[in-house]
């Protein structure tokens, strides 16, 4: 399967219990985020399964205060960092979209699947009610 590589950050810039958002497609809004939880790296698409909206309340703030859960700060959905499974909230039982990555010379490299997965028209949501293509 084809993919595009994006060098997100050096691994030593990702700390245990912290998350970082990235804007690999230069959209002006972070479309993926990475975190280290119990020593394991995870990279997820920044899109809540409930409404396909961004999770964070501000830059890099994707986690609960104790860093034990990923939280969608739109409606308070909570996700397990290790699997992306929603354990509380509107999308209970659904999962965040985990993205493949690799380590290369100390860098965290996102292997963005396909060439169109995140490169369609900019929308706030895949749902019809939230569909707002940009005008330009």
């Amino acid at each position: 399967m084809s993919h595009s590589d994006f060098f997100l950050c050096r691994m030593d810039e990702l700390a245990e219990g912290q998350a970082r958002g990235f804007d690999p497609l230069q959209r002006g809004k972070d479309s993926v985020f990475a975190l280290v939880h119990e020593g394991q790296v995870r990279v997820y698409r920044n899109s809540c399964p409930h409404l396909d909206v961004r999770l964070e309340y501000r830059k890099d703030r994707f986690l609960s205060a104790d860093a034990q859960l990923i939280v969608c700060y739109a409606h308070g959905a909570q996700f397990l960092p290790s699997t992306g499974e929603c354990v509380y909230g509107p999308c209970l039982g659904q999962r965040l979209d985990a993205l493949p990555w690799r380590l290369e010379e100390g860098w965290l490299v996102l292997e963005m699947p396909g060439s169109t997965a995140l490169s369609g028209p900019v929308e706030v949501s895949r749902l019809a009610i939230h569909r707002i293509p940009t005008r330009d």
Partner: protein
Amino acid sequence: MNILGLDALIFGVDDIQACTDCLRDYGLAAVAVDSNGGRFEALDGTAVIIRRSDDPDLPVAIGPAPSIRETVYGVANAADLDAIEDELARDRQVTRDGNGVLHSVDDMGFAIAFQVTVRKAYSAPDDLTNAAGHAPQRPLNQPGITLEMNATPRTLSHVVYFVPDAAKAEAFYAERLGFRTTDTFIGAGPFMRPAGSDDHHCLFMIQTPPHMKGCEHFTFHMGSGTEVLLAGTRFEQKGWTSFWGPGRHLFGSNWFWYFNSPLGCHIEYDADMDKHDDAWEARRAPLSADNSQLFLFNSKEKWAPGGPPPKHG
């Protein structure tokens, strides 16, 4: 029962600092705020109050922190409190705390409270429009806007709940507390105003599966649509994540702009809401993009012709 509207919303949170930053950046004034939380006031004294989620003085939480813990309504006087106490005590526990505040629970399990209102008079500029074909509202030579103009939340406007049974919830507020339904989204729920307020709604409820029960958002009234756009622009520039807006709702006619927040629900700016009395006939419409707003925009970084090309064009 002369319920005037919302006096305060109380949240139990897991990150006091983040919530403090959020509510200050939103434009509320911090009153007696420390590491255990505090009160964040609009110009008229209505407020959002945050506490640590394990604070034993808070009503029981509906879900995990952060979450709404109590909705406090203001009434005109002590006789109104007595009437509410008599009515609710017929079938549920009602307690009165040391400050004379009544505490009880609605039919969905949301903690509700009632107090003689904290709302006070305040001074803030009018929104003066020069509409062609009418006498100008602004004096000659008075600019309508300035770069430094104020955009401060004026009064707590409304709260929105996710509820598992909107019909039962509506009946409780209508029959037990004297609320009127102003409009209804079919399949979602009612917009309601208490008898002592002419605002289109101070409570809107959306029917959802039971596991979603909780607060969807709250908002304070700004002075105008311009103030919604300005305050939202400044809030976004401080790094807060826009969720929906800016735009203008159809039911209620209020301008809106919603943001994510560390309080576990959205925080909104609104302005210029319709006013109603009992002569109004409630409308009913299916919830759709067209029915929920007249128009919707996305903000973008400031740009002007002649300068560098717009970012993320």
